[in-house]
């Protein structure tokens, strides 16, 4: 990309870094005007990341491991920081790890937000974060053989399926509490919502003392697939399927990462259409979450009403994209469907109806006496914990932090509008719900604004050529928060590396703190309030350490308890 010195944003951060660590900075490379990769000496990596994070309003957006042995003989790490101080930009701290000893100093002791990333890079590349206290696997299944690292270029064909090494789960759950506790596992199968995950709650009586969870039951190996079987355009369709609710946000993030890397100018009309579809996706996703909040607080009529109205958003998506899931719309360089006059009018009609109907439902929800009682002051996320772990989306905005990628690092059609950001200071489930409600109505306003004066011209450009080993970030604000993608082009019309970080990835680590101190009956509600790519789990095993007995109860019982709060299953 042709970034010029005058237009570059973020130079003060580099100057500060050079001043504080005079001998650490080796090189700086600008991908776009507001994206810079700065190479540091491996030993200074934690210090450099921590400096940007805590002294210059940086938030850790993602970390990318890359096997660059065929390019420079080393493995590479890229810590991506979203700088949200006076100048808004992305600074990527880059360091090379020797292929001989495979060790790097862990950043986690200085910046806790790095913990999952460093566990993942150990799973996928076999790199050893020295000083990282958590030695457990994160991504790979328990039955995966030791010493086989899927993302190393020379480790295996993407289709290799090692024989299972175990027929049962071997994951160790961590409990930090000082008192004796009861163990409550939930999962991995569950009934009400989406994906599997395995929770373990450590309780003292009815109170949750600590919690731990095992995720990645759905690890499929998409990043490996993207650099093997698929070409650049095919990966946009794969990115749709990162998540069944906010897949379009991933697709846009991926496409823009490649577009940023190659300096492709995407037509304005395509950018506006992308923003319209992203907001359509946010509408149906937020309605889903509002419905679930009703469900968990025992207000099932409200749940059905929200789902009934949500179908209007699905009709809108089907009309604009041909599928209820806003899938399959992006290509590198633009979009595949236009919004013609007839569709524009139908869209305006549908969102008008949605505004009126949802407003009535929200009135009903907030005037239900039980509702506030269940969500106010529950599931608190301390703003300092939020600062340490870099959560995203309504979760961080409900704890008073003004972070929204659409406003901080305007992308796609958001460059064409003024983007309001809603925050709430309550830090509880109520705050997160109120943020979502406000954002729902914003979505309608954004779509109206973009349809009012949509740019003219083409929706797709094919006027570019792929160049090898160019890399850049692409990002979107999905309904659940920032999605961050990093792509490096390869020399064979395929990606060399695609790194995809979904919003919920950044929200899981803080969940533990949100659960602590609450009652067991609130657990599904709290998990639901981060709007995870699933909200609860199937079975609940209760191990009462004090009484030396264990007992398994069905998830449905757990959920019933959450809704009715009578007849504790723990007794």
């Amino acid at each position, binding site marked *: 990309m042709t970034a010029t010195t005058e237009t570059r944003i973020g130079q003060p951060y580099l100057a500060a870094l050079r001043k504080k660590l005079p001998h650490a900075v080796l090189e700086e490379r600008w991908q776009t005007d507001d994206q810079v990769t700065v190479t540091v000496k491996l030993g200074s990596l934690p210090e450099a990341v921590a400096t940007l994070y805590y002294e210059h309003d940086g938030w850790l957006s993602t970390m990318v491991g890359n096997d660059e042995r065929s390019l420079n003989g080393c493995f590479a790490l890229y810590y991506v920081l979203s700088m949200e101080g006076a100048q808004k930009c992305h600074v990527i701290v880059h360091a090379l790890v020797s292929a001989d000893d495979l060790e790097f100093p862990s950043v986690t002791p200085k910046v806790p937000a790095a913990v999952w990333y460093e566990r993942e890079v150990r799973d996928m590349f076999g790199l050893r974060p020295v000083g990282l206290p958590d030695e457990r696997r994160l991504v790979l299944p328990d039955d995966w053989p030791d010493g086989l690292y899927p993302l190393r270029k020379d480790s295996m064909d993407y289709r290799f399926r090692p024989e299972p090494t175990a027929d049962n789960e071997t994951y160790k759950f961590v409990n930090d509490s000082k008192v004796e506790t009861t163990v409550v596992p939930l999962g991995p199968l569950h009934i009400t919502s989406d994906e599997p995950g395995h929770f373990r709650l450590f309780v003292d009586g009815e109170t949750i003392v600590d919690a731990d969870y095992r995720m990645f039951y759905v690890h499929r190996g998409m990043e490996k697939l993207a650099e093997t*079987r*698929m070409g650049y*355009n*095919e990966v946009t*369709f*794969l990115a749709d*399927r990162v998540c069944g609710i906010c897949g379009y946000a991933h697709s846009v993030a991926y496409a823009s990462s490649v577009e940023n890397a190659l300096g492709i100018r995407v037509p304005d009309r395509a950018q506006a259409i992308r923003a319209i579809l992203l907001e359509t996706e946010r509408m149906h996703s937020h309605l889903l979450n509002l419905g679930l909040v009703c469900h968990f607080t025992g207000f099932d*009529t*409200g749940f059905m*009403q929200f789902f*009934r109205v949500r179908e209007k958003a699905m*009709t809108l998506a*089907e*009309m604009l994209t*041909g*599928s209820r899931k806003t*899938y*399959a719309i992006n290509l590198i360089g633009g979009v*595949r*469907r236009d919004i013609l006059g007839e569709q524009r009018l139908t869209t305006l009609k549908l969102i008008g109806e949605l505004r009126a109907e949802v407003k*009535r*439902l929200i*009135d*009903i929800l907030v*005037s239900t006496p039980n509702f506030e009682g269940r969500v106010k002051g529950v599931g608190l996320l301390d703003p300092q914990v939020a600062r340490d772990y870099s959560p995203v989306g309504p979760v961080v905005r409900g704890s008073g932090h003004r972070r929204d990628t659409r406003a901080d690092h305007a992308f796609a059609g958001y460059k064409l509008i003024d983007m309001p950001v809603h925050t709430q200071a309550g830090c509880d489930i109520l705050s997160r719900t109120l943020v979502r409600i406000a954002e729902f109505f914003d979505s309608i306003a954004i779509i109206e604004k973009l349809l009012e004066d949509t740019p003219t011209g083409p929706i797709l450009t094919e006027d570019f050529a792929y160049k090898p080993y160019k890399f850049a970030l692409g990002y979107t604000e999905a309904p659940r928060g920032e999605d961050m993608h990093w792509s490096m082009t390869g020399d064979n019309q395929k990606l060399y590396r695609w790194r995809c970080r979904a919003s919920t990835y950044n929200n899981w680590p803080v969940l533990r703190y949100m659960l602590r101190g609450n009652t067991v009956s609130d657990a599904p509600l709290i998990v639901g309030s981060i709007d995870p790519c699933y909200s609860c789990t199937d079975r609940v095993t209760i191990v009462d350490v004090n009484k030396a007995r264990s007992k398994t109860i069905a998830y449905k019982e757990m959920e019933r308890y959450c809704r009715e709060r009578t007849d504790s299953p723990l007794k």
Partner: protein
Amino acid sequence: MLKLLREVFRTGEATHKYPFAPLEVAKDFRGKPEHNAVSCIACAACTIACPPNAISMETDVAAGTRTWSISYGRCIFCGRCEEACPTGAIALSPDFELAVARKEDLTKRAVFSLAACPSCGEPLAAAKEVAYVLDILTRSAASPEEAERARFLVSTCPACKRKHDVEQLARIGVERQMENR
């Protein structure tokens, strides 16, 4: 509570009649890809574009056939095949009623014959593809000689074309040497 009751009465019956009455889908809905085998030239553009490899093509040299197939079970209904197809032989229809009890019923095939290279007799490409390209080139050819040249280029296999080129070059070379003498 009253508000809620009012909302419930205001809504009335919300449920679609489907399956007792047909359900209307949006215009340009992406349902089952309909393949029109007559228009298909077995060029394989769709097999390359298809992200999940639901469309594939297999060549059986011994039988002289090329078999195109689609698995509706693997299809993600993205419409890339429709976008890539040069003859409009595949398009997504509004049909969504695809559930089956036998997995074999999810597959549709089309068998095409292969054309042989007139020089060496080796199979070259699907006969329909060769005929289609020839049709286009002959129509746009400025002269009968150009049309004949196009026919040669299209119907000859790459190996024979190379051989032909080498022979031509050699002949030119010999002629030049003769001239130089």
